[in-house]
């Protein structure tokens, strides 16, 4: 056979050119479909082959996936096949199959005279090219086989390249998404920090859910104190009853709950609102919020990364919402404190200051409040007849309610002062008004007296108050001023209040007090009691009213360890020579 060298030369040039062009095209292409398809078409065209198939190794299943085929009817694209090669075959870059070879045992196909090319790079094996015989049944020339081998090497490199590129692109994109999510969180935390308006926070939260995750349906239940309320919702969420809110909050007590049929059926509201996932937000070990979301607008299921983002976003929003509540509480508290300090000033203004000087008696009075305002009261006022009225009272309860009632009593007393009625009649009226105007659990114990200076007579009415203690100058025993009637406000006046006159002689000492004195507790929870009070008065009986008063207050303070839990009031009166 005559060899046409010139022809062979031009043929190899063509070959080389094809290989070069193909290689450039393949390496530049990052599309594995394109690479595989080209490998098949070029080989089939160049080598006049009518059937060929490419199998790519699947490392997960340890078998080969048929990516693309032409001819070979017994094989199916996308199906997975197991290859069995003897050790000699496995080492070769290509070999011809004979009738005893069953490299693909699961398929009953005649592969005689087919070639199997190993698709490999210098390090790794990636798959096989199965090449049918020439259509004209001629054997492959050496050049044919070298050409095919070269093309397989180039194509495999290109395939690996494209796989890496795809992986890299995916990685880049995921990274990009994470960065964007971080940006979103950063952007929102900046904005949330500036906001004190819960509606605005909810609205931005809503936009972030929509924009980042395509979530249109959501709700946010927030726990304040012991109650739960729906702070925000959108999309398909219907208005829940308080009971529905309470039950879903207590039932959905896990971090993330994917709503299943069981939950849907036991929670009508969740079902109706198309909620698919529930999240709990926990701050400092306390579940403070429950967030429910529906499926996405584009129906793509949530990934773990999405859940993480959703949790971070929810945390951020809930912390901001919590902050607004704290802020409101603080403002409320500050306003309340300011109001109380005003109330305290008003209440102090209701008490006589300074204590007026009354001829014939040495007088001292003082009230100590355990809080800003309280229910203790004393008064010293001049009646139209020129005589002086003394009063001491204690309203049940403490704080603002007691202070209001105390102010009420003070004004009644001053309105009645110029009216020409007896102490007894005035007490009747005060009792009726208090009874009518106050809740049934509010009472006032009240003692008042008029000092008739011309006759040195003290005329008093005691309406249920701790009996004032009278220590006569010529006696070592205390008398108690108990006459009068029921405490004020308990019931309408049925029996007139009794007024009693007592004669005061020089040196006689009267101590009026409220239960803050005798009921003061020490560290062992024992009351100060009237015994200690009497002892204290007794020891100081020769002193002036103010000194006696101070002695009692100091004694009680010392006893309690400086911890008063109640208001205490003292009015000390000593008859002069």
């Amino acid at each position, binding site marked *: 056979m005559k060899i046409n060298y010139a022809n062979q030369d031009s043929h190899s040039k063509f070959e080389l050119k094809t290989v070069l062009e193909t290689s450039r095209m393949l390496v530049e292409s990052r599309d594995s479909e394109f690479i595989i398809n080209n490998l098949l078409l070029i080989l089939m065209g160049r080598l006049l082959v009518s059937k060929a198939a490419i199998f790519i190794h699947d490392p997960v299943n340890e078998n080969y996936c048929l990516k693309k085929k032409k001819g070979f009817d017994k094989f199916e694209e996308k199906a997975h096949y197991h290859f069995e090669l003897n050790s000699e075959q496995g080492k070769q870059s290509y070999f011809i199959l004979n009738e005893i070879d069953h490299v693909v045992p699961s398929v009953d196909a005649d592969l005689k005279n087919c070639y199997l090319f190993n698709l490999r790079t210098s390090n790794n094996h990636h798959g096989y090219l199965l090449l049918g015989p020439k259509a004209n049944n001629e054997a492959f020339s050496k050049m044919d086989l070298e050409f095919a081998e070269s093309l397989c090497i180039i194509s495999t490199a290109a395939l690996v390249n494209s796989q890496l590129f795809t992986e890299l692109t995916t990685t880049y994109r995921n990274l990009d998404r994470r960065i964007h999510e971080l940006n979103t969180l950063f*952007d929102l935390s900046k*904005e949330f920090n*500036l906001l004190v308006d819960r509606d605005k926070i909810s*609205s931005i939260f809503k*936009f972030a*859910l929509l924009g980042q995750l395509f979530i249109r349906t959501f709700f946010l239940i927030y726990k304040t104190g012991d109650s739960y309320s729906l702070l925000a919702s959108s999309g398909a969420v219907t208005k829940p009853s308080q009971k529905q809110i309470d039950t879903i909050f207590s039932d959905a007590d896990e971090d993330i709950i994917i709503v299943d049929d069981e939950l849907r059926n036991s929670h009508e509201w969740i079902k109706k609102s198309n909620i698919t996932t529930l999240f709990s937000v926990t701050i400092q070990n306390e579940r403070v919020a429950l967030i429910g979301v529906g499926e996405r607008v584009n129906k793509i299921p949530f990934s773990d990364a999405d859940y993480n983002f959703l949790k971070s976003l929810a945390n951020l929003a809930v912390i901001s919402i919590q902050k607004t509540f704290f802020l409101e509480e603080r403002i409320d508290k500050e306003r309340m404190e300011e109001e109380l300090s005003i109330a305290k000033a008003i209440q102090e203004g209701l008490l006589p200051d300074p204590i007026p000087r009354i001829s014939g008696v040495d007088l001292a009075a003082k009230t100590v409040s355990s809080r800003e305002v309280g229910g203790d009261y004393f008064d010293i006022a001049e009646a139209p007849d020129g005589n002086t009225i003394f009063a001491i009272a204690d309203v049940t309860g403490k704080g603002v309610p007691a202070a209001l009632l105390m102010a009420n009593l003070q004004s009644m007393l001053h309105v009645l002062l110029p009216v020409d009625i007896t102490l007894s009649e005035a007490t009747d009226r005060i009792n009726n008004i208090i009874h009518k105007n106050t809740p049934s659990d509010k009472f006032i114990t009240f003692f008042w007296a008029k000092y008739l200076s011309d006759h040195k007579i003290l005329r008093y009415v005691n309406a249920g108050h701790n009996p004032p203690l009278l220590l006569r100058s010529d006696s070592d025993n205390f008398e108690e001023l108990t006459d009068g009637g029921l405490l004020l406000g308990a019931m309408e006046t049925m029996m007139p209040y009794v007024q009693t006159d007592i004669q005061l002689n020089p040196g006689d000492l009267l101590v009026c007090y409220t239960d803050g004195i005798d009921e003061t507790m020490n560290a062992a929870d024992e009351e100060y009691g009237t015994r200690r009070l009497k002892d204290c008065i007794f020891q100081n009986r020769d002193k002036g009213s103010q000194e006696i008063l101070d002695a009692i207050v100091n004694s009680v303070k010392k006893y309690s360890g400086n911890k008063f839990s109640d208001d205490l009031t003292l009015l000390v009166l000593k008859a002069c020579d």
Partner: protein
Amino acid sequence: MKTFKIEHRNNHGFEILDLYGELDAHTASQLEESLKNLISSQKSNIIVNFRELDYIASAGLGVFMAYIEDVRTIGGDIKLSNMNDKVYNVFDLLGFPTLYDIFDDEKQAINKFLSDS
């Protein structure tokens, strides 16, 4: 940094919103206001031109999601145009191209409106 602003104009009977600066959680409410105004006056053929927009955050994207259904219900659409690569990347990352028509140029958006009607 440019301050965010929105300018409203009319082009061949279409409502054009030109966005400037940075659209984030802070400025999202302004865009919301503009879209609400258009919808309430039944102006539903809306093109948002992003030529002068430097940055967009998720809350900004959320506004588009929040009103697209309203606009489509009254027979209109919100089409987006002239995004820079950075802004487009954000839309693309979150999958917006499957839900919105996004064009390189405002003119293409107008043509799309015209060919759809």
